[in-house]
């Protein structure tokens, strides 16, 4: 799974060369995963590293991302995780974008690998704070379909993200600071999974 995601990401990363616009970024995320289930709460924290790429032709585009890292649990074993996404995007307005696509996440634990496959629909709005140099954005999404390898049936999921995009001088280099939160509910509300991330991305290209 990890090798497949990385290969797919590398392959897709070459596509921006052919696109009208695009960006490639390296990302580092602080990750907090909180599982609240009938057997008790489970909190894990860790750090993830990865990359993102976006490219577009006109208003349409594709956004892909990959992140992997390790989560530590107080009094428990560490867990590796890998996640990736590939969203088709549409930017009908300068300040608004829509996205849809799969978002996969795997937790690799000694007892086995737990995989989440979430099909998400995103909507994003952005506003310029200082011309095109600094931009703030907010994004929300819902999980429209999911395959989660847990015993509880999937009920629904939502998420939100917000942050800043900063262009560095006149260079094509851009920084991105983001906070994101995912919330999944399973088993008729008996199990709740919350994934919180704070990330910093550095890359070439603005969007």
């Amino acid at each position: 799974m990890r090798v497949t995601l990385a290969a797919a990401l590398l392959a897709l990363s070459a596509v921006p060369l052919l696109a009208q616009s695009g960006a490639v970024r390296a990302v580092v995320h602080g990750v907090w995963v909180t599982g609240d289930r009938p057997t008790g709460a489970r909190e894990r924290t860790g750090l993830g590293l990865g990359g993102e790429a976006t490219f577009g032709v006109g208003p349409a585009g594709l956004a892909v991302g990959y992140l992997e890292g390790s989560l530590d649990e107080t009094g428990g074993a560490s867990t590796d995780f890998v996640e990736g996404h590939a969203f088709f995007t549409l930017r009908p307005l300068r300040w608004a974008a829509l996205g849809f696509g799969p978002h996969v996440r795997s937790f690799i634990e000694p007892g086995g690998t737990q995989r989440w496959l979430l099909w998400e629909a995103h909507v994003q709005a952005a506003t310029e704070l200082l011309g095109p140099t600094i931009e703030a954005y907010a994004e929300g999404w819902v999980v429209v379909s999911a395959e989660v390898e847990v015993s509880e049936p999937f009920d629904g999921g939502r998420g939100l993200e917000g942050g800043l995009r900063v262009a560095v001088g006149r260079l094509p280099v851009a920084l991105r600071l983001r906070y994101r939160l995912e919330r999944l509910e399973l088993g008729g509300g008996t199990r709740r999974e919350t994934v919180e991330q704070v990330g910093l991305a550095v890359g070439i290209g603005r969007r």
Partner: protein
Amino acid sequence: MRAAYRAAGLGFALIGATPAFGQAQAPGQLLTSGIRAYQQLEFADAAGLLRRALAAPPPGLEAASRSQALAYLGAAELFRNRPDSAASVFTRLVRSDPRYRFDRLTFPPEVTTVFDAARRRNPAAALGLEPVRTIRSGQPDYPIDVFGSTYHDARVEIAQLDGRTLRTVYAGPVSDSLRLEWDGRGAEDEPLAEGRYVLRVTSLDSVGTAARTVRIPLDIRIAGVDTVPHPPPPPDSVLLPERSAAAPALEALIGSLAIGTAIAVLPSALSSDVDLSPTRFAVGAAVTVAGFSGFFARRPGRPIPENVAANDRVRADWRTGVEAVVRQNRDRMRRALLEVRAGMPQIIEAESR
């Protein structure tokens, strides 16, 4: 009844004898009678008739008839042994008509000699101009005929109404006649603007003092010129705003506040049962601070130097275009068609004369 006829006849006789009845004769008839009396050697009668012809109220004699009347009057006075009066009459003749010359077949040498002496004493010039003439500026197309009473020095000038000389067309000797060509230009060879000017001919006496000046008003109108219109100033749609508008600053402020607040607050609403990381507050604060920075950096009314510079370049380009057109039009104006209308001459004699 007979007494009544006598009274009526006396009345008619009195009316016929009054001066008003005699003055009712046309000046032309008086001139004809005066010349006839001169030819019959009745010089006193001739002088009287001619003086009455000359004294007729306006419109009086035409210019040519007036000159003729003065010529016969001077000759008659001369033959009445009144040389001073004859000289005075000839002086009047020279001044009013410098072009006049005696017919030497009609008048004997003793008359023409006195007249020639009067001409020499009274240097004067007359001008011959077309009433209306269209010329091309810069081309010597406007004829000015100068007729002198005698050989003398004269200046022909184009002047402002206040007397300031714009152009000296000619300065030099004038004898019987001289044709000059004016090119419609004024000072420093520049084309004259539309308006009223004066063509001035000053006759100088033997010591170079102005003896007599003839002023003819000239109305100059530009009859045709194919000038190019100035390029219009750059419209507002071309110019960039030189001061920041309120909208972007407010958008930055409101947008950052909304997004920063959303980042800080919405996660708690979405996951109220989880103790979330406080990092969201840092990210929300960063967004808000960036928004405030954007607001102050783009505060309403702040000068935008790059736009000011860009607009300055646009305006400079426009001014360059205007200057080019001005140069082009000035060049075309130098070749404009001018309509020159000559007015009635005004003669100014030197006070000492």
